[in-house]
């Protein structure tokens, strides 16, 4: 069977712009959550987020380029450029047609939507900018990446809320494994720190006013984030033939639907997704050393996820390290899974497990080794990365350290 390896990654997050800055933050256990500066916060009940404050649009794009690219597309393109450069992959005419672009985003160009709604509803303007539709459409990040890098193979966007980029990476993995492509630029982007989106989240009453404390008994909910993480996936022989540096290997992908509730998580759906991913990877479960958890720091998610992990792994659950990096880069919704795959690859490649930051007090309902507050240097041969979306759509990836 064709093997699929990761040869490049690029990141924009609250921890920094660029892969190096992001993983340095993960290693330090640095929390990127703080007061929102991107927009006016008057009228917001919860004016905090994991905002990518280091990202300055004009450092990356000129004025004409910004006219056509929403912030979500800018972040996707910035991360994609880094991922492609770091991979060293050369997109020849032949490879271009065999390279896929599969990008997750839950909400698409929200800044474009919010700005233009203000113009027509609040300011009573008669018209909006002619490029409003191509800026706000959810496939804009995927389309722009394909255009900028000349990627002519299969390309689409994936929108499954908080699981979008795990679904995207998983589909890219299966596409390459099955022979439908030889390479893929994949991952996710989200930039929904707008007044309208934040009001919508406030309405659901699941947001924390102070910070994100996954698995802690004192947790008070999720914190919104923004950013992008993009990976270059390649068929193994292709990567090997060109002497690429291999960061890690994707070996399994499982997806399920809870078929239960539009917001409440389900232990059964999460457990079945983890089992499906392990089966796809042809692993029993005891090989797994680390799980990058969905870990949103809501009351419901964290206890349900821990129960699902116990259900799947049995006694081995006590030997697992389980951390939520949302404590540092916030919940980046459609970019969450991709950012978390970067943390998962850090564990496999660098032997450093990112911590669960802001942890205060153990919760008997989350009684796993959640790697509290301090990163851990340890060899990780296999790892899992969980994403469980609102609407009960679950996507789990299995990755392996590359050592042959």
């Amino acid at each position, binding site marked *: 069977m064709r093997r699929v390896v990761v040869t490049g990654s690029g990141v924009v997050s609250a921890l920094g712009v660029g892969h190096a800055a992001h993983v340095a933050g993960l290693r330090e256990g640095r929390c990127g959550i703080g007061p929102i500066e991107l927009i006016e916060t008057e009228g917001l009940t919860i004016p905090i987020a994991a905002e990518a404050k280091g990202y300055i649009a004009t450092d990356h794009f000129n004025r004409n380029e910004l006219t056509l690219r929403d912030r979500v597309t800018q972040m996707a393109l910035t991360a994609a450029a880094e991922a492609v450069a770091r991979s060293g992959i050369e997109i020849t005419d032949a490879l271009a047609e065999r390279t896929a672009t599969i990008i997750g985003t839950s909400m698409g160009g929200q800044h474009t939507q919010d700005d233009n709604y203000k113009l027509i509803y609040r300011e009573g303007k008669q018209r909006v900018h002619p490029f409003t539709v191509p800026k706000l459409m959810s496939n804009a990040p995927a389309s722009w990446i394909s255009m900028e890098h000349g990627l002519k193979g299969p390309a689409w966007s994936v929108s499954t809320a908080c699981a979008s980029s795990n679904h995207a990476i998983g589909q890219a993995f299966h596409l390459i494994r099955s022979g439908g492509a030889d390479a893929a630029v994949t991952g996710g982007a989200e930039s929904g720190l707008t007044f309208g989106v934040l009001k919508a989240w406030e309405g659901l009453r699941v947001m924390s006013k102070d910070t994100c404390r996954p698995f802690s008994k004192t947790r008070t909910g999720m914190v919104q984030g923004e950013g992008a993480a993009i990976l270059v996936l390649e068929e193994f022989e292709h990567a090997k033939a060109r002497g690429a540096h291999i960061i890690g290997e994707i070996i399994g992908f499982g997806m399920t639907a809870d078929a239960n509730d539009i917001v*409440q998580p389900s232990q059964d759906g999460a457990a079945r997704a983890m089992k499906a991913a392990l089966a796809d990877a042809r692993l029993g479960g005891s090989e797994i050393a680390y799980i990058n958890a969905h870990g949103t720091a809501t*009351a419901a998610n964290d206890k349900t996820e821990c129960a699902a992990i116990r259900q799947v792994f049995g006694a081995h659950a006590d030997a697992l390290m389980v951390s939520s990096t949302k404590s540092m880069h916030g919940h980046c919704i459609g970019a969450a899974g991709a950012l978390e795959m970067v943390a998962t690859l850090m564990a496999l490649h660098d032997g450093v497990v990112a911590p669960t930051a802001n942890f205060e007090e153990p919760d008997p309902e989350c009684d796993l080794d959640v790697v509290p507050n301090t990163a851990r240097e340890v060899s990780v041969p296999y790892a899992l990365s969980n994403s469980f979306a609102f609407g009960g759509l679950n996507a789990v990836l299995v990755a392996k350290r590359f050592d042959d």
Partner: protein
Amino acid sequence: MSDDIRPQVRAIIAEQAMIDVDQVTQDSALDALGLDSLGLVEIVFAIEEQFGVTVPYNANDPSSGEFDISSVKAVEDGVIRLVTEKA
């Protein structure tokens, strides 16, 4: 004023629970009326809209928050407090 607020709060709860307002007694627990977490969030929203207040309610920590939702009476008392504070 509180005589006026209590029946309004009970009407909001009854509508969300899809039961007759006569079945909503002061000592009823909200979950006993068949309300789940989404129903509670909708009640909080309806209270905020009707009375022009902001209810400090977080679904992650409903039992120990600043706003007691353990019974119908507790919700009524909480709304009266918020309306009084606003006035």
